[in-house]
């Protein structure tokens, strides 16, 4: 005797969120049953393995049927096929679009193309996340990317509206879209120590201050496409003018004097700082002036690590010291009488400072 067919359908769709998680994790039915047994599901209701198996199968099938709807979450609210309480709907969507930051870290900055999808088994074996789960997460990234790519208006809000995600989730997805669009280099060995959250933070800074949308008050931003995805060209161009800070010998010296004066006695690595000031300043300014080239934009993070963070770390600066230095370094430029690019400078340094501080792991 064997069971050929076993179906359970409720008028209100019954969904067990624990099993949903197992399904999302890409487990097979058999694995899921085992996992549930380990969790002690058999103790409830005097269940046996058969009952558990049947229940798990049913749930998995329900999720599979729902998956199509989850691809466009806004449909979930007005589809007729499943009667799902709105709370469950929200939970379904949130969990479906949840991702492992380890996985996200791996694909960050990569092109969301078929090619990348083929490499998912490598990522799967590297991260220990099942291939099925990897595919789902990758497809989610890609789907969000496709939808918001051509939309006008603020990125985070667009994501939130079309995928009904929470604030945090929407922001994370915005970071992923932003990275995928600009194809920032994140895979280099030197960058491996950075987590997804570090990058997501940097992305949010860039989106907030460097994109076209960032100067929203100045433009009628509903007119601008890709306002949050692309960095503002004009701004990147203006960054070239910052070069004067290192090219003008006087100004460089004066800048150094001001910074040193402010930091004397306040940081332990004062001597090293004094010795390195010109190198650091040059690195930061050069970085700014090169950003008009797409290639250099992509290398933004690797450059920051190589030119700024690593030297400081070699000299054993503490995070506090870096913070102090960058603050004084930014502020001191205002004291330079001949320096006229205050606004651009602040816009540039604000983001760079936040990024460096976030990326500076002692």
């Amino acid at each position, binding site marked *: *005797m*064997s*069971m*050929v*067919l*076993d*179906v*359970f*359908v*409720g*008028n*209100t*769709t*019954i969904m*067990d969120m624990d099993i949903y998680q197992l399904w999302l994790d890409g487990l097979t039915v058999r694995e899921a049953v085992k996992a549930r047994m380990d969790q002690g599901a058999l103790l*409830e*209701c*005097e*269940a*046996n393995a*058969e*009952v*558990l198996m*049947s*229940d798990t*199968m*049913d749930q998995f*099938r*329900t999720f*599979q*049927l729902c998956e199509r709807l989850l691809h466009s979450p*806004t*449909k979930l*609210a*007005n*589809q*007729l*096929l*499943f*009667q*799902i*309480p*709105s*709370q*469950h*709907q*929200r939970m379904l969507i949130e969990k479906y679009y949840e991702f492992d930051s380890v996985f996200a870290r791996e694909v960050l900055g990569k092109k969301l193309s078929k090619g990348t999808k083929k490499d998912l088994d490598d990522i799967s074996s590297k991260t220990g996340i099942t291939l099925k789960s990897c595919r789902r997460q990758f497809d989610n990234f890609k789907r969000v990317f496709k939808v918001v790519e051509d939309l006008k208006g603020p990125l985070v809000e667009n994501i*939130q*509206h079309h995928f*009904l995600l929470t604030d945090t989730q929407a922001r994370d997805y915005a970071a992923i879209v932003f990275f995928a669009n600009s194809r920032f280099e994140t895979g280099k060995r030197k960058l491996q120590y950075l987590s997804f959250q570090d990058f997501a933070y940097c992305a949010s800074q860039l989106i907030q201050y460097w994109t076209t949308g960032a100067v929203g008050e100045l433009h009628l931003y509903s007119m601008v496409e890709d306002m949050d995805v692309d960095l503002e060209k004009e701004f990147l161009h203006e960054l070239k003018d910052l070069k004067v800070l290192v090219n003008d010998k006087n100004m460089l010296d004066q800048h150094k004097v001001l910074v040193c004066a402010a930091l004397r006695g306040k940081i332990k690595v004062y001597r090293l700082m004094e010795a390195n000031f010109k190198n650091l300043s040059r690195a930061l300014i050069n970085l700014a002036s090169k950003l008009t080239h797409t290639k250099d934009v992509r290398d933004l993070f690797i450059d920051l690590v190589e030119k700024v963070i690593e030297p400081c770390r070699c000299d054993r600066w503490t995070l506090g010291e870096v913070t102090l230095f960058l603050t004084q370094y930014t502020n001191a430029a205002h004291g330079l009488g001949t320096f006229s690019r205050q606004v651009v400078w602040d816009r540039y340094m604000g983001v760079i400072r936040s990024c460096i501080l976030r990326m500076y792991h002692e």
Partner: protein
Amino acid sequence: MPGKLKAKIVAGRHLPVMDRASDLTDAFVEVKFGNTTFKTDVFPKSLNPQWNSEWFKFEVDDEDLQDEPLQITVLDHDTYSANDAIGKVYIDIDPLLCSEAATRICGWFPIYDTIHGIRGEINVLVKVDLFNDLNSFRQSSCGVKFFCTTSIPRCYRAALVHGFVEELVVNEDPEYQWIDRIRTPRASNEARQRLISLMSGELQRKIGLKVLEMGGNAVVGYLQCFDLEGESGLVVRAIGTASPNTNTHSNTAPASNACNSPSKDSKEATWAMFKQPVLDISFPLIGVLNNQFRHFLFLSVLSGMGSGGSAGKEAGPLKTLLRQHTQSALEQREFPFFTLTCFPPGFLVHVGGVVSARSVKLLDRIHNPDEPETRDAWWEEIRQEIKSHAKALGCHAVVGYSESTSICEEVCILSASGTAAMLNPRFMREGCLDAGGSDHRLFEDASPPSCGFCHIPYDEFNMPFPAQLTYCYRCRRQKVPDVLFTTIDLPAEAAVTGKGCLIQARLCRTKKKAQGEVNATAISNLLPFMEYELHTQLMNKLKLRSMNALFGLRIQISVGENMLLGLASATGVYLSALPAPGGIQVAGKTPSDLNYDQHIATMQKRINDTITKNKELYNIHPPESTEELVGSPIPDRQRSRLFRSTSESSDELLELDLSHGKKDAFVLERGSVTMSINMFVSSGFYSCNTEVMPGIYNWTSGLQMFTSVRVYRLSNANLTNQGLNKIFTELCENLLKSLYFKLRSMIPCCLCHVNFTVAVPEEELIQMGAVRLNCVCVCGCVFVCLFVSGSGENEDQLQFSMELCADSTPSNNQPTSKPSAPSVDYGSFADRCSTWLELLRLKAHTIRRGSVKTISSAERCSPLPEGRSRSLRSTRSMPCGAPVAVVKMTPLSFLPGTRIVKYLGIINMFFIRETTSLREEGGVSGFLHCFIAEVFAMVRAHVAALGGNAVVSYSMKECVFMENPNKNQAQCLINVSGDAVIFVRESEQEATPPLMSSGQISSTGADGTT
């Protein structure tokens, strides 16, 4: 009454991509009614088209209005090739023909395709204008209301119950026509769907005509069935109870004429299809057997129809008097049958036992236009038999009546069953209801309503079969039988001790594979034995739970190629009026064998332990002191032996029993006892197959309806009676276990109206010859049982209520446990209840305030979605309206904690789904899962379009599944029905009274004994 039907196509959404190149669709819509078709413009390149069409007007006869559905087809326009169909929507416009029901149909309908399932949705608006026409020769019956509900619908009042109406129409099944060989599966499925829709419309119209003829204006307990007889055609038949209903709001009770027997209109079956009954075997044996389901009514002292209350102990003359009266009213009817299972108080005077009849027929394709009524004749024969059985039990009416068929190739078993009963004649006569109120009270005084229906209806000294009678444990005046089996629901006024539970008897019998007459004979020889054994099993299981009555008994016998399956389900209860059931004693076959004796002894001990345990579980603590008071007329009543209860009823049975009780049968019996001992019991779960769970009165509005289907494949090796029995029992138990597990998050809850259906599909469906399909379908409804009838449930509250439940039960029974207390007046009990409720409400409030997250409560989703998604909707350009309204579905006739304010009409839908890519759709389970979900969705959409928010009395009448895995194909047919209603939530204040009154009843019940 000709009418004008108007339809408007508003918009579509979520359409499928029909043009691969553009990923879009050029959709247009065809609206068809009868032979008239209209088209909308093509809305190019959109998946969310906005047609906003003009009003399409159809001027039609009302006969067509009743028969035909409105057919809406969505198509994809193609310039060069033929237009592709996306899918269809059939809208039954019947609800619009009643003035009081829905006024328009308006809303989103799923676009359904028989191959692809639901493909997008369409927004439609339909209205009907009826012209008045007083033509007396009309063929239509607009205005007759239909209800699936098997009780008087809640917001109506029955002025008069007329009785039985039946009708059947036959047609050739399009699936088996020659044309089916050349047309596509889609065309064939659609032809079939359309035909059945037409036929059920026609059937309903004809029944309506009969009802009008009888002077009624409504049909309650409408039961429609399809017999897919394969080659030989398609029969749609329906039965119901005609009654003029008056809305409680309107005062006019229509004058009604004396009832006529259902007239035999000659049917105009266009496709003549008829059969000769080759075998005509009806069972006198079964008739006798059914006397086993004894338990009759007996008319006690009744102040007969206001003719002066000579209330006394001389029940004899009065009884005859009353019977004469009632009979005179009923006798005029050919069949005094009622499909109702719930009755207004006072309607049911006495309840008799179960009566049933079965008949085996051979379907044969004989075109004989001169004899178009073969089917009718078959059914008539069976009904006559039922009637005579009822008469033998001293009853003049049959209530809770139902009919069913089981078909396997050319053999067909027709079954009918009901409960013999005596009814209050007042409801049969004209203009009775005005007097109803005052009369009613008189009646109640004479015979306590809580036990009256248990009293035997027949003469004590002239019993149709030997039964053990005792004086009623409640009133001590009248005789009652020791057990009572019925097919109806537990009357609301009945006094029950403890809780009820689902009791099932399962049986498999193998038979030789045979053809034609030989096969039919074999089956008919097996049937009596099966009935007998099912009955024995039920009896034993009942005793094992120390209960003494069964309600809602439903015995299903289904026939397969080489086996017969029997499944009896019922809800067992302990009626306070009936004596305590005896124990079970195991008798050894060879007393000398020591080992065997020991074995028997341990068995006996286990049985006794189980009985004690069950008493605890179901809270059955009957007052024991009463024994002496009454004095039992039969000395060994306490211990009726295992087989005794069934033995002495008739000559035939006596013989049967002798051969049964001694040897082989004993082993078998023991097996079944063991099985029932091992019955799985889960705490916090209750199940029953009646509308309400006896002994539990605290319902919440949390409600979940589900359908579960399982198909098993048996290997040839197991084909012995015992092996099959074991497997079958396991299947059923496992299914129940699975259900409990699935619904564990709702504990404490109760499975109500669990409806098991078994089928043994034809063998050839599966390519391997040695296997067989066995399909179990459960349609049920789950309640969360909570003390507070608040709307929100959260975890805290649930736990809290569980404590309370535990609290409440002992005190409910308090009067019982203290028999010495002189009297507990109801007032104080009610007070106690209300203080409790106060307390509860307070607690519930505090909890509700404190809790932040609530778990899945259907209520929660009905209000607006949270702000975020709403703001989203306003910003999006897509034409998406408000979120989908929640539609509840339940097999019950009511929704706990709510009040039904309007019945919008009957929902009766038939769907076919077929696939040629079974594997891709997730195998058979995936296919069926999706299909059932789609059926639910379509039912909900229709109800919502009528303006309703729930379906009551929902049932899945038919679920036929066929597969051919080798060809990657599967097909499934589903027929569902129910009543669309609007309900409103009762405020907590309003919800209290019913709860109180039931509490009172139970206390009354217990009180009477002291």
